[in-house]
């Protein structure tokens, strides 16, 4: 326990300086502390008794205003945006302007109440002002820097853990064990009733797995094999469901499809969502239609699925994560050159994705 206490104190101090909870208290401490500092300077004792408090209050207010200009204007808009030279010039200007303003007011409005006649000590007066300004700037800027530094640190940690989580999810998504075991169970059922169909399913499942295991890790894959994969995916899904029709086609020439490379699994998330949300709880007809074509070096992927509003409404809270990830990936891959359009109608959901190839 003994060893912990300095660290604990340290944390308390840092928390006090950066935590939003202590914001009000922090500003209060700063204002009072600064008042204390100015209270023990000499200049205001040169003035007549009741007026010296006005002088003190006037100088205090001006300096506080300067400090807050530094905190809320100069530091965030210049220093943090790396305009260091502008920052220092403006800071000096602010200091000079503030001190001149104070001394101007002293001379013109408060001079009548000045009782000290050794006012030729002008240098001392000036230096006191400078020292005051420097100390305010140093403390406030340091605190601001500390706050930004801790916030940035936190953001960086969050970002890296987010990336890690995404990678982990991706790994997990490569082969969904739930899907796999259900497929095996279906094959087992088919062997009994329709051995021919069971054979087809095993072939499709093998191709599906082969793609997930080997192509998924590659940077680029042939558009044909991606289409083949999606076709296997939705056709396997068709076996699992009743009253479900799937359709995938491309009007584009086979030659072009066979010579176009795209990053793997670009459309998988959309198809997964289409599968998920096309489920009709009352067993009515549901469908997925996928179209992929290339025109003018633009690949257009269209996915239309029927939707059961009852289901999508109850499931809202779970959706979104996959989409967030794929959007991020599209941004990283294509910057601003892709367009993604997703629209929900009464009974239908349409996704249109355009990417350059």
């Amino acid at each position, binding site marked *: 326990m003994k060893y912990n206490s300095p660290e604990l104190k340290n944390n308390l101090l840092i928390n006090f300086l950066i935590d939003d909870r202590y914001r009000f208290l922090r500003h209060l401490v700063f204002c009072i502390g600064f008042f204390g500092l100015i209270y023990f300077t000499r200049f205001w004792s040169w003035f007549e008794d009741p007026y010296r408090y006005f002088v003190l209050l006037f100088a205090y207010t001006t300096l506080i205003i300067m400090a807050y200009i530094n905190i809320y204007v100069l530091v965030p808009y210049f220093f943090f945006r790396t305009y260091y030279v502008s920052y220092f010039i403006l800071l000096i200007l602010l200091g000079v302007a503030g001190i001149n303003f104070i001394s101007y007011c002293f001379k013109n409005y408060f001079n009548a109440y000045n009782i000290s006649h050794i006012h030729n000590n002008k240098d001392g007066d000036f230096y006191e002002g400078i020292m005051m300004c420097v100390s305010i700037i140093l403390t406030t800027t340091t605190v601001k820097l500390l706050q930004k530094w801790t916030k940035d640190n936190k953001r960086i940690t969050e970002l890296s853990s987010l990336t890690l989580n995404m990678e982990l999810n991706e790994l997990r998504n490569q082969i969904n*064990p*739930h899907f*796999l*075991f*259900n497929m*095996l*169970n*279906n094959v*087992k*059922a*088919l062997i*009994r*009733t329709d051995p021919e169909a069971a054979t087809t399913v095993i072939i499709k499942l093998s191709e599906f797995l082969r793609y997930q295991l080997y192509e998924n890790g590659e940077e680029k894959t042939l558009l044909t094999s991606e289409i083949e994969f999606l076709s296997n995916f939705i056709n396997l899904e068709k*076996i*699992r*469901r*009743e009253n479900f029709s799937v359709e995938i086609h491309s009007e584009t020439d086979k030659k072009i499809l066979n010579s176009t490379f795209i990053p793997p699994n670009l459309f998988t998330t959309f198809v997964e969502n289409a599968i998920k949300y096309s*489920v009709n*709880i009352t*067993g009515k007809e549901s469908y997925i239609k996928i179209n992929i074509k290339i025109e003018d070096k633009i690949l257009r992927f269209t996915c239309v699925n029927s939707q059961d509003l*009852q*289901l999508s409404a*109850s*499931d809202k809270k779970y959706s979104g994560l996959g989409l967030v990830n794929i959007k991020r990936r599209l941004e990283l891959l294509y910057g601003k050159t892709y367009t993604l359009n997703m629209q929900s109608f009464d009974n239908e959901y349409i996704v249109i994705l355009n990417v350059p190839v």
Partner: protein
Amino acid sequence: MNCIVVDDEPLARAEMRSLINEVSKLEILSEFSNAPAALEFLKTNETDLIFLDIEMPLVTGLDFAKMIPKHSLVIFTTAYSQYALKSYELDAVDYLLKPVDKKRLEKAISKAVLYKQLLSNNTVKNTVESNTNDFLLIKAERRYYKTNFSEIKFIEALKDYVVIHTQSQKLITAMNLKTIHQKIISPKFIRVSKSYVVNTDCIDSFDTHSLYIGDSEIPLGEVYKNAFFTAYFGDSMSLE
């Protein structure tokens, strides 16, 4: 004894039907692709046993299991991994992993049949009347039956009852697991999951997620796991 099958996949239902018909004489009343339809059926039809898939759209099997009538027993059927499944702490007769093994299904059904018998006998009116330091007195039809602690292998929660598994028989009594655990004043009895209290003297073997007593496999609940290992070994050994 009758049953229904609830699974969102048509082929899985077909497979379950043929397996059930192969290994048992259960009467399959109907099958359902979703939980709400099955629930509607249960309102008007006395059903003894439900084969229930977990991963279904809208209402999962786990949520559905909480809504079914008290007298209906549940056997979960799911493609989820064994390990993930155990952590759910299911209140069910058994759970089966897809693809389902015939022998495993047979075992689950015979367990359900036995529990159905226990529940339908008058013995459910049994009460545990009194207790001392080394035996329970179970009152059944105005007579007290003495059961030594040392004879009890484990106690299993089943719906609103507990099944006391002794060396020679299974006794059922209307009581919750917590209450009977409190009545057994012996440090040898440890709660290992939501549905089980075991006599540590009877444990034959164990791994990180199950205990084995005779031919019964008892899941170790996540919440109770650490407390169990600490109580079983003392602080000296930690298992990972």
